[in-house]
């Protein structure tokens, strides 16, 4: 069931050190890389169908194509390692076990978009992982893999800087991340009407998730066909799927897209803990519509199948919920998270998350009524599509799905 591309070296002792990384194929894509033109690299990545692994699933190659050509301003690659979505803990595996794969991916990507400085924005809590990535960068600099030249022979200057976040979920949103990198509060930016690249101090920039960048060296080395042989036609390749909650083997597992969710739970996840029965799964980080146990039986882990079943694949980080857990508690726990993490810029989000939190508190106290559920759904609809970023619509997705799929659990708390 496992298909190890990105995670190939994870189990090798000391895989994070340059010596072990080099002995196990890291930086082996670089010679091929520099035999291609940057446009050829981008075309190969586009042909591979590589999709962003940070949650949105947008195609990676077409994103690179948005970088302006022949622009006198310096271009930048910004790697999004803010990883804050509840249930998601995959990028840290790359930081911990194969930081040199990330650096190799950064070399490939920077060459393709002609950027000579890459920033890796890592969430502030990941101190251990930040130190590890910095150590790997130092090793790569000392070995002249990056710096003035690549591998001491290819004429391409590259600097990599790790930027530590300060504990704000919203900085995982790419424009909020750039605001943060510019030294400001992490407030998402208004999006342009047409498609264009991102802007870092008015310089062209591309923002990609850590796992996306770590998937690039394999595509450079083995070509698009080497990637599309895994997965489905529309969701090619592999993804680091995660599973947490009351299961026997919580963790991160790399699989090709297209496996059944229930198989993932039972085989790699080891099934439910002794005496626990499956009630529901929140599929890809906490912001995706919840799936009931029946829906889990039918769910297939690729983008299109997940849309068909009324949810999304998101980050691939599944949270498993057992029969002993009240869905009202789940909703309350998650809305507390979102209320705390709303950046406060847009009123529907700032006030809506707080409002739902208050209503759920009232329901849990035993003072609620069926009317409150309608109010929650009403607030959800007010939050949807009326804000700068997708934070509020994501809150609507999860809360609305819990209320609509498990109304009976709320009824228990109503007196009348």
């Amino acid at each position: 069931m496992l298909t190890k591309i990105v995670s190939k070296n994870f189990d090798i002792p000391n895989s994070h050190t340059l010596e072990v990384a080099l002995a196990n194929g890291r930086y082996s894509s670089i010679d091929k890389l520099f035999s291609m033109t940057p446009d050829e690299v981008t075309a190969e990545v586009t042909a591979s169908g590589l999709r962003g692994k940070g949650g949105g699933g947008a195609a990676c190659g077409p994103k690179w194509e948005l970088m302006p050509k022949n622009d006198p301003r310096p271009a930048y690659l910004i790697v999004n390692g803010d990883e804050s979505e509840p249930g998601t803990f995959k990028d840290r595996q790359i930081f911990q076990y194969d930081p040199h794969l990330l650096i190799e991916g950064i070399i490939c990507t920077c060459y393709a978009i002609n950027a000579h400085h890459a920033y890796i924005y890592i969430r502030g809590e990941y101190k251990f992982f930040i130190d590890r990535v910095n150590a790997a960068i130092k090793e790569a600099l000392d070995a002249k893999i990056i710096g003035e030249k690549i591998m001491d022979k290819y004429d391409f200057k590259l600097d990599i800087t790790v930027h530590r976040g300060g504990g704000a979920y919203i900085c995982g949103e790419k424009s909020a991340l750039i605001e943060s990198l510019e030294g400001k509060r992490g407030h998402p930016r208004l999006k342009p009407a047409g498609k264009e690249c991102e802007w870092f101090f008015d310089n062209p920039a591309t923002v990609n998730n850590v796992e996306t960048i770590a998937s690039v060296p394999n595509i450079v080395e083995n070509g698009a066909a080497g990637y599309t042989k895994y997965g489905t036609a529309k969701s090619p390749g592999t993804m680091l799927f995660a599973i947490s909650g009351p299961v026997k083997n919580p963790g991160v597992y790399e699989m090709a897209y297209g496996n059944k969710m229930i198989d993932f739970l039972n085989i790699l996840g080891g099934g439910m803990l002794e005496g626990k029965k499956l009630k529901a799964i929140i599929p890809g980080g906490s912001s995706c519509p919840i799936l009931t146990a029946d829906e889990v039986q039918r769910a297939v882990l690729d983008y299109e199948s997940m849309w068909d079943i009324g949810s999304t694949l998101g980050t691939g980080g599944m949270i498993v919920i057992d029969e002993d857990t009240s869905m009202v508690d789940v909703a309350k726990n998650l809305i507390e998270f979102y209320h705390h993490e709303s950046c406060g810029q847009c009123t529907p989000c700032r006030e809506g998350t707080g409002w739902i939190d208050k209503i759920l508190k009232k329901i849990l106290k035993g003072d609620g009524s069926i009317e409150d559920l309608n109010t929650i759904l009403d607030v959800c609809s007010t939050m949807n599509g009326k804000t700068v970023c997708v934070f509020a619509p994501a809150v609507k997705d999860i809360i609305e799905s819990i209320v609509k799929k498990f109304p009976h659990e709320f009824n228990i708390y109503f007196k009348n």
Partner: protein
Amino acid sequence: MNTFNYTPENELKFQEYVTRYPKIDSCMLPALWLVQEQEGWVSPEAMVYVADKLGKTPIQVYEVATFYTMFNLKPIGTYHIELCKTLSCRLCGSQKIKDHIKQTIGIEAGQTSQDGVFHLSEVECMGACGGAPMFALNGEYHEKLTIQRVDELIKECKNAN
């Protein structure tokens, strides 16, 4: 007037950060991290100091320091326990861990113990869901916590203090 200064070592680190970005503005978070690593918290005086260094107004530093939850805006205990309260940890028993810590140390979330040794914070998802329940102790992750393990760690802190 200003009582805060970087140590010479941190001043060197700051100067290195300045070379890493297209504009000095980007040094806001790195500069605040240096303050917190030096002092354990970010005082108003330190914010004014950072503002001077970055060519910003104090309010511009204040709005950033208060936006990001990891900056301590007042002094906290020697050992900072950041207990994850979000869903995966909650489903795996974080409530029991919290109750036990509260009982053992005698503080609520958000409080510092009277002897100044411990500070307990309840925080949102730390990205350790596979190791739930978990807390960070002065930034170091401790996963798959049991009551016994919590007791050991608390004891280690007390002994070291």
